[in-house]
């Protein structure tokens, strides 16, 4: 403790007394109240500056690496160059120490210093997401956007005002490749859009053999296939429940789409009458198709709490688009009174991250939803320590190198989903996650009346033109998807 006092005093004494800098400060044994909570987080070296606000009373200054940073409009702001300079001064443990001083009644007080750890693993430079009001039926504006993680620049990939204000959803990339993308547009000008190295194609994906148009896509690593589910999904508003909305399936199956032949195929094991199958995902080697499956229950919504999904996989042969003849249970969540959704395998194939919650499959509306991990090398399953909060943690994607994970969380206000990033080490351990940086995060996130939905890393900027997407959705009759004989 005395060492810390001396360090702070020494640091403070280096400050010049003029221009409002603290000459000496009394340490108070309190954590600095800041937003976003960047205390003890691990960040990549190529992340945009982590500006933050001091939420306590009084004027505050920040001491970092011997430099004094003063609040501007209530925010500690760092220029891009200044931020890089700070990170370059990180200590042997890879961290930078931040100390906040506040002036109360003419006296300077110093909060407990905190550290930000700089990971040597860079993060994919872009990530994309949908911005949507958190309602479930009405929206005026929504769009799919992408953000340069190395700056604050946000670009639009597609806006729904270009296609009659319809719903745009489920944007997905092949291993973060920005040139291979798929998303759905609904109602007027609806269809599934596949962007494949500059070529934009619209698909009409409802077939006589499937219960709905294709939903929840996931690319095969070869880029030749996309796994989808087909779902009869309904939603309802709770009268009085912490989980405001319930989204549930009355039926669902998993199919695989062949990008070249425009055909879908399935196994009787992914389209069983007595089961709900959903959220398919391929393993990085493309030989396994993972998905969530529950014993079919009904009638819905009466039995919505009885639908519990386990995690299964089936062999997939990319050569002839065929499936194995048996299912393998990866995690029997229902046996533990739980349910899983959104399985995603790490690029090295060792870990599978999923969302675990009490029941159902639409975890974004379940307060108990947390991120869990399966170590596929030994089948062990565990919650991701340090990542989860008392509110929703849900949809997540891996970075292309598997060192970072982005996920959605409602931890800040319980309703508006925000993207958090966490570093994953070789053993699958996660660090304390950090919120997507903004120029003025407090003001930005308070003013934001939309949720960040389906965050997904990309290794570069998505460059497909909005005009091209608009024209295809508006004018193209679309290619009818068939069923493989």
């Amino acid at each position: 403790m005395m060492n810390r006092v001396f360090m702070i005093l020494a640091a403070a004494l280096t400050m010049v007394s003029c221009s409002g800098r603290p000459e000496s400060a009394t340490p108070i044994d309190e954590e600095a109240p800041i937003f976003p909570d960047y205390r003890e987080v691990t960040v990549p070296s190529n992340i945009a500056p982590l500006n933050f606000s001091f939420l306590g009373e009084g004027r505050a200054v920040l001491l970092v690496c011997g430099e004094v940073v003063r609040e501007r409009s209530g925010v500690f702001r760092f220029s891009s160059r200044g931020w890089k300079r700070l990170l370059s001064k990180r200590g042997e443990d890879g961290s930078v120490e931040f100390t906040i001083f506040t002036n109360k009644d003419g006296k300077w007080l110093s909060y407990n210093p905190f550290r930000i750890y700089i990971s040597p693993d860079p993060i994919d430079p872009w990530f994309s997401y949908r911005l949507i009001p958190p309602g479930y039926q009405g929206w005026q504006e929504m769009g799919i956007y992408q953000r340069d993680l190395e700056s604050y620049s946000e670009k639009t990939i597609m806006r729904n005002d270009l296609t009659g204000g319809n719903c745009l959803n489920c944007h997905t990339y092949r291993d973060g490749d920005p040139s291979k993308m798929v998303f759905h547009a609904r109602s007027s000008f609806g269809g599934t859009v596949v962007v494949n190295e500059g070529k934009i194609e619209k698909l009409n994906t409802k077939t006589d053999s499937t219960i709905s148009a294709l939903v929840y896509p996931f690319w095969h690593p070869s880029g030749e296939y996309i796994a989808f589910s087909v779902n009869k999904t309904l939603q309802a508003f709770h009268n009085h429940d912490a989980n405001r909305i319930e989204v549930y399936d009355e039926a669902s199956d998993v199919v695989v789409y062949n990008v070249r032949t425009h055909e879908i195929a399935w196994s009787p094991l992914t389209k069983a009458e007595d089961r709900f199958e959903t959220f398919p995902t391929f393993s990085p080697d493309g030989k396994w198709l993972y998905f969530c499956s529950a014993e079919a229950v009904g009638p819905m919504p009466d039995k919505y709490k009885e639908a519990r999904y386990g995690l299964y996989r089936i062999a997939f042969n990319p050569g002839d688009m065929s499936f194995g003849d048996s299912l393998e249970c990866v995690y029997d969540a229902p046996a533990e009174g739980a349910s899983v959704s959104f399985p995603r395998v790490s690029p090295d194939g060792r870990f599978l991250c999923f969302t675990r919650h009490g029941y159902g499959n639409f975890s974004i509306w379940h307060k108990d939803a947390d991120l869990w991990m399966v170590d596929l090398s030994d089948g062990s399953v565990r919650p991701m320590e340090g990542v989860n909060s008392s509110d929703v943690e849900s949809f997540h994607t891996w970075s292309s190198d598997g060192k970072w994970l982005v996920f959605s969380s409602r931890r800040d206000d319980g309703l508006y989903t925000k993207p958090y990033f966490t570093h994953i080490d070789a053993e699958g351990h996660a660090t304390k996650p950090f919120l997507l940086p903004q120029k003025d995060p407090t003001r930005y996130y308070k003013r934001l009346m939309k949720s960040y939905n389906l965050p997904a890393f990309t290794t570069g900027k998505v460059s497909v033109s909005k005009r091209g997407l608009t024209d295809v959705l508006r004018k193209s009759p679309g290619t009818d998807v068939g069923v493989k004989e």
Partner: protein
Amino acid sequence: MVNPFALAYREQQQLFLFDKTYIWGTFLKVGGLATLLARFIVQFFWNPTIALILTLLLLALSVWMTWVFARESRKDWKILPLCLVPAVMLGASLADNRIHFEYLTAFMLAQAGLVAYKNICSRRILWGVIITIVLYFTAGPAAILFAVCAALRPSEKHPAERAVVFLSTAAACGLIACLTAAVPTWADAFTPAFYFDLDAGSPAFHWAAWIALPVSLLLRVLIRSVRLNRWIAFVSGLALAALALIPAERFSNRIEQEQPSLAYIFEYYTNNEDWDGLIKACEKAPWLPRTANYLNMALSRKGELAERLLDYNQRGADALVMVTRDRAVDVAQAHIMMAMGNVAAAQDVAFNALYSLNGYCPAMVKINAQVELMRGSYEVADKYLSLLEKAPRYRKWARDHRSFLHDDAAVEADPILGNGRRNLSAKNAFVMFTNPMSELFPILDANPSDKRALEYGLCYLLLAKDLNSVKHFITDYYSSPDSLELPRIAQEAMVFYSEYSRNMEGVEPFGMDWCYEHGVQPETVARFEEYQKAAVAGPVSLKRFRGTYWYYLIHTEI
């Protein structure tokens, strides 16, 4: 021609925010300045009279700008009537609530561009091109209007060449806007469809003002070239303006058929909590279910629902709440559910109706803020309040409600928020999965002190003529010593039911003792005897019993 209530409703289709990001974000879109001006003006439309006056002032300004551009001198008054024609068409277009108000402001920006262009003395082509470009990106395709009309300036040299240059410039701007997907379609890039609701299929009439302006200017050129007598020109202009009223009136009438203005009137009184005004407006057609919904909500808000329910021609339980299939945008239902005490159902609607044609719907933001305070979701409530604080009209309301943040005791002590919170403590169920009563029962179980919910429940069963359920309802909620006084119509229902229960199969007979024990007054019993005599005497004698439950029960088909 333009319904002031329809204009006033525009105020509920947007929320102008005094916020740098909002203003800058709006400005940077194609037509952004026109949008900002429109939204700034429309925020004052909370009162229909103000809405009408402001609109008329803008139209008058539009007439003046047309005249300033078209006149040769300040004494050129003979062409003034001709300048009325575009404004008449503009006014009629505004009757259609799907056309954004920026249709008018963009038009006026184009006119302002014309006035500015007229006063430029040198490098007129260059300035014309600059104005066209600036107009396109600040007012949208109204720049095309400028490009067409600028060449029709009095004494313009080489008008055809200039028209080609300006139109080419506007076309290039439209092309860029379209290719960069700043606008959805070519129609949006070049036609008044830009100012119409997304892909809703703009009626051809919205071309009228766009055609009327250049035509008026062409006629002005014609008048000048044939040296028409000033009085003949004046009278001809007046006649033309009068003629323009015919299609304008026809269009307004068509819009009135498609978008009945009653809804705007009801919403106006509801949002201003003018319950007497709402009752008066509803009295014109109380037999229509949605009108009856508003009427009964107003009665409930005044605490007079059960007392005055049968003063009006009610037809069945739908008169209290008509549940539509698509509740996402049914703002009326949010208000009605709030009045019923079903705050979860109100939020179900308000949550999804948060966004209107041009942004947030203030009434729905308020409901969401209230319900979040009731729920104790203070961070979310704070978001809504912060939003409302940026709009002058709602700032005080928001600031007043800010004091409830993180103060459970204050919320619980507040008559509205506290009552709502108690109602939310009802057992969980999905909102509106069966019928309104299935949700009211648990609410009443949780909060029997909610008088409005209690009356809604009782009246719902009475209007449904479900006397057995009425009896159970009274047993459950009007039997304790501290219960509210049993409303007259419920007394009448029970007296009737008691009398007829003796002869009805499957109904357990009950006598007057039960009635007296449950709040029926002797006067009601005495009047029932009179009613029975009148019923025997014939229909004329029954007239004086209109407004009684007996009359409703026997003579109203549901």
